[in-house]
């Protein structure tokens, strides 16, 4: 009797143990399925990018920064076309309209790409199940760097010219030193103080740029840019000795100096474009890029001021008006016609 009682007790305990274990497993499964939206209603969209690189099964699909589904399947079709299936939660379908597109977004310089779906034209109908969405190329770091190349090349050419001009002006045995007669008369009308002050400020801006480019190189971001633009600071530094020469110049020298200042302004314009590009390039260095951009803007402003106070007087920055190279057309801020069928 005692043995039977003991066995019955053991059976009860084992039963309870099994029941509680199974219950826990079921509860865990329930929580997991709820959290992973396993049984939520879903719909499928397709996209055909030029390459499956950067895509993988299970990759998050986001809309406005929220995860709305995952990459379900990737296959290479018989025609050679890549077809990717996106399994998305049905409750978000109302937010996706005709004109919606898929693109890969890089959240930071490092890290996995995220598949993002755009909303499309909200005035049109919502997307149906099984629709093939267009794939949009997102400007990648590499593409942005490639885009910057023409501007950098332009800056390099200008820098080369500036080096030659600066050397010619600073040559102790050159015309600058030798031609001292009638110099005062030629430069009498000039605002010497303003010119010297402007050149000093240009030199200060150049020193700031030099520091920033060194920082860029230290951070290994945009390294080739840093090495390319490092010259800038050196060239601009060469302008400093000119301050003392300005009151002792011959007419030819003055005309060369005017050319130099004009090229300087052009250079600062090219650098400005590069600085704007750099803001896009270095997400981990937004402060640095902004500083660099500001320094270059300041340089450009100073170069313009320098031209304005120059001997023969130059035109100021025209802003929205026509360009300075002859009769301008005045549409420099308007996107040009052509492209995309227009």
């Amino acid at each position, binding site marked *: 009797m005692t043995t039977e009682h003991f066995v019955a007790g053991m059976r009860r305990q084992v039963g309870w143990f099994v029941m509680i274990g199974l219950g826990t497993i079921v509860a865990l499964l329930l929580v997991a399925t709820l959290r992973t939206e396993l049984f939520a209603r879903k719909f499928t969209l397709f996209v055909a990018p030029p390459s499956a690189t950067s895509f993988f099964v299970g990759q998050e699909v986001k809309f406005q920064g929220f995860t709305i589904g995952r990459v379900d399947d990737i296959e290479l079709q018989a025609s050679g076309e890549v077809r990717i299936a996106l399994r998305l939660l049905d409750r978000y379908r109302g937010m996706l309209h005709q004109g919606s597109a898929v693109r890969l977004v890089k959240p930071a310089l490092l890290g996995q790409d995220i598949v993002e779906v755009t909303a499309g034209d909200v005035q049109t109908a919502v997307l149906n199940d099984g629709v093939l969405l267009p794939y949009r190329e997102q400007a990648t770091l590499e593409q942005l760097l490639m885009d910057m190349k023409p501007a950098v090349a332009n800056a390099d050419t200008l820098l080369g010219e500036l080096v030659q001009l600066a050397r010619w002006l600073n040559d102790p045995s050159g015309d600058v030193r030798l031609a001292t007669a009638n110099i005062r008369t030629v430069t009498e009308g000039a605002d010497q103080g303003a010119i010297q002050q402007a050149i000093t400020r240009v030199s200060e801006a150049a020193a700031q740029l030099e520091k920033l480019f060194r920082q860029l190189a230290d951070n290994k971001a945009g390294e080739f840019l840093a090495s390319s633009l490092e010259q800038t600071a050196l060239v601009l530094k060469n302008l400093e000795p000119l301050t003392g020469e300005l009151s002792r110049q011959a007419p030819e020298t003055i005309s060369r100096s005017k050319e130099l200042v004009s090229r300087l302004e052009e250079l600062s314009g090219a650098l400005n474009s590069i600085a704007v590009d750099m803001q896009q390039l270095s997400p981990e260095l937004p402060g640095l890029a902004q500083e660099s951009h500001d320094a270059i803007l300041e340089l450009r402003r100073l170069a313009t001021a320098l031209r304005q106070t120059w001997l023969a007087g130059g035109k100021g920055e025209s802003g929205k008006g026509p360009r300075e190279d002859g009769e301008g057309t005045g*549409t420099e801020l308007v996107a040009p*016609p052509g492209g995309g069928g*227009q």
Partner: protein
Amino acid sequence: MRLAVLLVLLALSACASRMPAPEVQVNNPWQANAESLARSGVDAMEREKWGFARVMFERSLQAATLAGDEKLMALGHYNLGRAQTAGGDAAAARQSYRQAIRQADSAGDAVNARRAALALAMLEDGDAQASEAQLDVPVAFPIDIHLAAARLAVLRGRENAARQSYARVLGMAGKDRNGLLYAARAHLGMAELEYAADSQGGNAAAWAHLNTSLGLLRRAGQPRLMLQAVKLAAKLESEPVRRQMWQQRARALENILQQSPAR
């Protein structure tokens, strides 16, 4: 007598004090930033970097919003629309153009409103009646709007309106590179009109416009437009050997442009 002199002096000093103080020029840094970014976007468009141009125009629009410059905001939406159109995102471009029109209307900016309306009309082929009203562009409007009106007129089959708009473009084009390109586009447009009017070949008026356009394009450089001009020359040419040469040149240009960007 002394009193009279005193009164005159007082009157003079009162007049002098009413003279307005010289206005100090203040630059809005956000506005300068918006303009600078817009220039970069325009430059990227010229290099056919649509994605990059889009990013630049988006940033420019943000800066214009921070600057509170409503006209620049309207232009920003329009520029963004152009980059989206060029990138093949017509739905987004429509939204941008509509936003540009709303923004320009609220700022009383007729120029940008018309600019965006014409671009929208070019996208929406079905709405011909609405676009008819856009063809009559005031003379004082910028050159790009006259060019857009000319193209829309060609699409709508309004030959006279197109010729009138192209003539205005030619009258307004400056002597800088931008101006030469606008003139080249207008001459090319006129050549296409002449060709359409008399497609038998040997059309002297079409050749005159086409040769002028080619000359301008050689000076300013715009491979995509050059390709369009060479293709038209191949159509216009009646002599078989020369036509074949034009066709070969068109193919060569097309291949190069497919392999690498325009600039």
